[in-house]
């Protein structure tokens, strides 16, 4: 008997993407569940966590933001190896505003978000015409260079950095601020990437010549994407400055570039939610591994390998596929 595996969409998804009217509770739950559940988790969890894991949650959210910002850029065809640039820029701007001008965090963070994003965009616009790995190389280099420049010129505290920043009132404020922004950015950007505007951005990745041939200025759109992405990264950095009351050269560290990318790849790039999911898995994993001491990073590296090899399409895609599709064996009639 000849058989083959058939895959069937659960159907509701296809229907509901455009049509908003939903008929039954079950369908509504089916659709809203995957969205509400993580949101609820993010909002309720902090109340039950110990002080330390609350800090970890901030880290999770920060890396999730960086990963989303990475993924958003990647969807526009710009693979960045330097999220640290965005992060560091936001961190420094906020740190400087607070340290030298005494601005309270509530003012410094928003300014740093926008200003940091703008600065990063400005720095990177000259290289927007670079493609693929060449663009990646430049993004990798710029944060390294900024570190050395700060080191050489000793500006903004030089190697020691600036410390004693004003903290936010409480850990819970920090958490709700960052998770609020995270959820907003996640759902907002997911929506944005589904619009026609987002489609143009995705088109640039696929085939930028064709986008040009459609009468669209790819540089302008790339600049916009860059600005959106770097703003998100800058926010994460600005927030971290106030959480740790410190800003210094290490904000440009390679970790901030690599971890977001790893998170996005593990979670599944191209979906934004996957990037966030990756961060939600990797960061606590790395913290949990602290328990085993020096072997921690070793295990962490191995986990990265296992994740990417076991689920090459990315966890989010995998889960989504499982959630929305059924597989069954069917007979082939001849």
């Amino acid at each position, binding site marked *: 008997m000849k058989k083959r595996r058939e895959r069937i969409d659960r159907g509701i998804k296809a229907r509901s993407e*455009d049509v908003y009217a939903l008929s039954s509770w079950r369908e509504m739950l089916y659709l809203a569940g995957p969205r509400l559940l993580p949101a609820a988790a993010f909002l309720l969890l902090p109340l039950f966590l110990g002080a330390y894991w609350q800090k970890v949650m901030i880290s999770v959210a920060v890396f999730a933001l960086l990963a989303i910002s990475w993924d958003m850029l990647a969807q526009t065809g710009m693979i960045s190896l330097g999220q640290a640039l965005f992060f560091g820029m936001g961190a420094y701007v906020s740190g400087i505003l607070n340290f030298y001008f005494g601005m309270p965090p509530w003012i410094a963070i928003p300014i740093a978000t926008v200003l940091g994003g703008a600065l990063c965009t400005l720095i990177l616009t000259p290289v927007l015409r670079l493609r693929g790995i060449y663009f990646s190389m430049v993004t990798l280099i710029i944060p390294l260079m900024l570190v050395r420049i700060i080191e050489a010129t000793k500006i903004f505290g030089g190697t020691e950095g600036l410390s004693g920043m004003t903290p936010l009132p409480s850990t819970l404020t920090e958490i709700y601020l960052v998770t609020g922004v995270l959820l907003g950015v996640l759902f907002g950007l997911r929506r944005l990437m589904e619009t*026609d*505007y987002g*489609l*143009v951005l*995705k*088109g640039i*990745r*696929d*085939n930028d*010549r*064709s*986008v*040009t*041939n*459609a*009468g*669209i*200025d*790819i540089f302008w759109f790339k600049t916009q994407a860059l600005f959106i992405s770097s703003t998100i990264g800058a926010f994460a950095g600005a927030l971290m400055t106030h959480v740790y009351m410190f800003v210094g050269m290490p904000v440009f560290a390679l970790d901030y570039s690599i971890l977001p990318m790893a998170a996005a790849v593990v979670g599944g790039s191209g979906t934004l939610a996957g990037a966030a999911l990756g961060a939600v898995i990797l960061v606590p994993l790395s913290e949990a591994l602290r328990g085993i001491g020096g072997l921690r990073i070793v295990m962490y590296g191995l986990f990265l390998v296992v994740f990417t090899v076991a689920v090459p399409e990315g966890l989010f895609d995998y889960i989504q596929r499982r959630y929305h599709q059924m597989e069954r064996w069917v007979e082939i009639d001849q």
Partner: protein
Amino acid sequence: MSLPTTLRVENISKIFGRVAAVDHLSCEVRRGELVGIIGPNGSGKTTLVNLISGFVKPTSGRILYNGQDITYTAPHKIVCMGISRTFQMVRPFYHLPAYKNMIIPLYSPRVRQLAGGRYGDRNAVALDLLEEVGFERDANVAYKPAGTLPQGYLKRLELAKAIALSPELLILDELFSGMSLAEVASVVPVIEKLRLAGKTIIMIEHRLKELFRIADRIMVLNYGQKIADGASTEVMESDEVKKAYLGSEG
């Protein structure tokens, strides 16, 4: 005829390395004309299209569109001025479904301007256009990722993308190659319709029979130079054309 000139190419050259792909070429296209360009492989036809659409900048010479110099204008601006072209080697957005491929041209400033700020449901427009060029609406080709479509569909997708921009001047680079007769027959009405609407069309083809049936005028290129220009029958009589293009027995 004294129709106004839509496109005027003046003494244009493009040199790659040491070889001139287009060599001091001049030509004119009038409004509403359908001009066919033929020529042996590597004679510079695609390069000429690239020059007109601004993707390649010439070594010398200039290009006028409706009297305006567009030689060094950025390609996306040229598109917005009303020149759109298809690619000989198809360039779809491989990861997007076919109908989403159409959204991107529909998003261009040109379309938005023409529609006066109201452009309705782009998805619907996209599907209509695809249907027009022969994507059957129910067989869900239009919803498949472009990367999995066969060549023939991709060719027609290219055409649909170009038409979506409602161009004044449409340049089709080897549209018919890779299509069967039946498909050509299904696409020709689309082109005819554009002509009736007064659009100017340039077609590059190796499928002469089909081309001659619809072209007003044929230009023949060889080694980047124009070696003949005129009605199809006239052009085919030329010895030079026979030798360079059709092979010995014509």
